[in-house]
């Protein structure tokens, strides 16, 4: 349609053409950016294999001596310790945060919609707006000393990281779950009440099972956010390159590894390129989560 108008070439048609083209260009930019990020990060990350000739078995191992010479068995650039750290912190945080987040969502939709709208909605939005470095700072100045004095260890621990992340992802779980519960048809609830169910029975046996796909989406979104969070986690987990044996042990994650060493390693060195590979892994995991969410959303729509 823009083309046909442009043939007349009056001023309005020219403007229409320019406006449409600009809008089209800006929308395309989103695709270009996504492709560029994938290609550049992937290309840089995989240089660990084709520039340094490191085997995949080496990269996905537990050994981390990136600066040890060959005669001492190095260099070893296993990122498994980092990967396990990331998975542990984010999965535990999601497990801790999901029940609370869904509780809040049910409260907002079923128990007291008035308070939900007036009080909890703004509270959740404000919690979501708190910058991650502030969560890290609170973790560092409140949680870490508390754990050190009451539970032992240095305080820099898996537990501190999990708690900070759990609070950070709570708004995501609560707001997405609320949307999922609100989207349910009212007839479900009416039918359950008509059959004589109590409110709790309605929630547990009808509403939550019906909103299953949406609630899972909320948890996966939160998990993705927790997995990619860098600074708040880095500030409280101690950044020790070991797999923790208890929740009071320090550990390291992919994001905190990148944060710690990217500025202090030489560009193009094996160590540096391994950090880029960790970035590629983060990107791949992020794609995986998007895929899972797409599947979940389609399932929710199909039912």
């Amino acid at each position, binding site marked *: 349609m823009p083309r046909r108008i442009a043939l007349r070439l009056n001023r309005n048609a020219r403007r229409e053409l320019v406006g449409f083209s600009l809008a089209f260009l800006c929308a395309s930019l989103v695709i270009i950016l996504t492709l560029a990020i994938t290609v550049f990060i992937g290309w840089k990350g995989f240089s660990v294999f084709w520039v340094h000739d490191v085997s995949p078995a080496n990269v996905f191992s537990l050994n981390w001596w990136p600066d040890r010479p060959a005669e001492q068995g190095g260099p070893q650039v296993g990122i498994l310790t980092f990967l396990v750290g990331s998975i542990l912190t984010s999965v535990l945080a999601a497990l801790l945060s999901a029940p609370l987040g869904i509780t809040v969502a049910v409260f907002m939709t079923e128990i007291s919609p008035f308070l939900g709208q007036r009080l*909890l909605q703004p509270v959740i939005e404000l919690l979501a707006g708190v910058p991650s470095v502030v969560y890290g700072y609170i973790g560092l100045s*409140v949680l870490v000393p508390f754990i050190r004095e009451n539970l032992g260890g240095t305080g820099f621990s898996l537990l501190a990281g999990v708690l900070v992340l759990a609070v950070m992802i709570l708004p995501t779980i609560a707001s997405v779950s609320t949307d999922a519960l609100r989207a349910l048809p009212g007839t479900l609830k009416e039918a359950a009440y008509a059959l004589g169910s109590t409110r709790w029975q309605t929630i547990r046996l009808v509403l939550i099972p019906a909103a299953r796909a949406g609630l899972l989406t909320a948890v996966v979104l939160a998990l993705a956010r927790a997995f990619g969070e860098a600074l708040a986690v880095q500030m409280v987990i101690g950044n020790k390159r070991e797999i923790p044996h208890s929740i009071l042990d320090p550990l390291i994650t992919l994001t905190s590894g990148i944060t710690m060493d990217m500025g202090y390693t030489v560009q193009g060195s094996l160590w540096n390129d391994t950090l880029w590979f960790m970035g590629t892994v983060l990107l791949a995991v992020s794609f995986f989560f998007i895929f899972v969410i797409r599947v979940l959303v389609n399932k929710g729509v199909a039912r």
Partner: protein
Amino acid sequence: MNAHAKNRLATHVFWLGAGFVVALLAALVTYIIVHGWQAIDIAFLLKEPETMRAGGGIGPNIFNSFYLLFLSMALTVPIGLLGGIYLAEYARQNTFTNLIRLSIETLTSLPSIVVGLFGLLVFVSMFGLGYSLTAGALALTVINLPLMVRVTEETLRTVPGDLREASLSLGATRWQTICRVVLPSAVPGLVTGIIISAGRVFGEAAALLFTAGMTTPRLDFGQTDFFHPTSPWNPFRPGETLAVHIWKVNSEALIPDIRRVADGSAAVLILVVLGFNLFARWLARRLVRRLSGG
């Protein structure tokens, strides 16, 4: 326990959960404000940070945060608006549109540290910008653009179709309809969206570590040469923002008064972000009232 006792117990649990979340926010904000109150004075807000000695301030960091916010919004808002206009007004149901939506979803859920790495690789190294505010602004734009596009699209979709049809039937072109009819009636939603995303950008740190950098040159506000390295307005100088400063002070600073600087910086940051949030709500209410003539 019968069904009704269980029902009562469950109700209590739901109230408890909701109360806990409210208490959590209250505790967080109270802690930050109380501790920050003791640390903040005029000197702290204006002075330069120290690297070894006590008594440093956060003046340049506050300036950097706002200036960087301005630079990135100057890129994000026009691109995001146009992208949103395309999706709401022009896009058809086809593969290209689906691809845009998938890309928006992908960009939204990217960890910000990955965006920071992309910025380091492309803006800092390939474009040769070095650690600079421009590189930082570009990275922030990558983070914020998907949100801006989505907010624009959603807001434009709330504009009633009758308005468009009336405008088109009077002989206006589509672009005229968008500029003269659709956009003006979507202003409240757009403004709220812009301010809320500004608040988000203000607190971002992970994407800036390796793009805008972790240092600030000594700034000379009397400097008239725009592109001089000490000019505060030079977009090609590095600049440590407030959020980055909080991270750096907490994790690797050598100053003796870490706690004071951290407390004060966190309080300023949280107040600005809360301010953005409350301002957006207030402005949205006001604009709606004025535009609807009520």
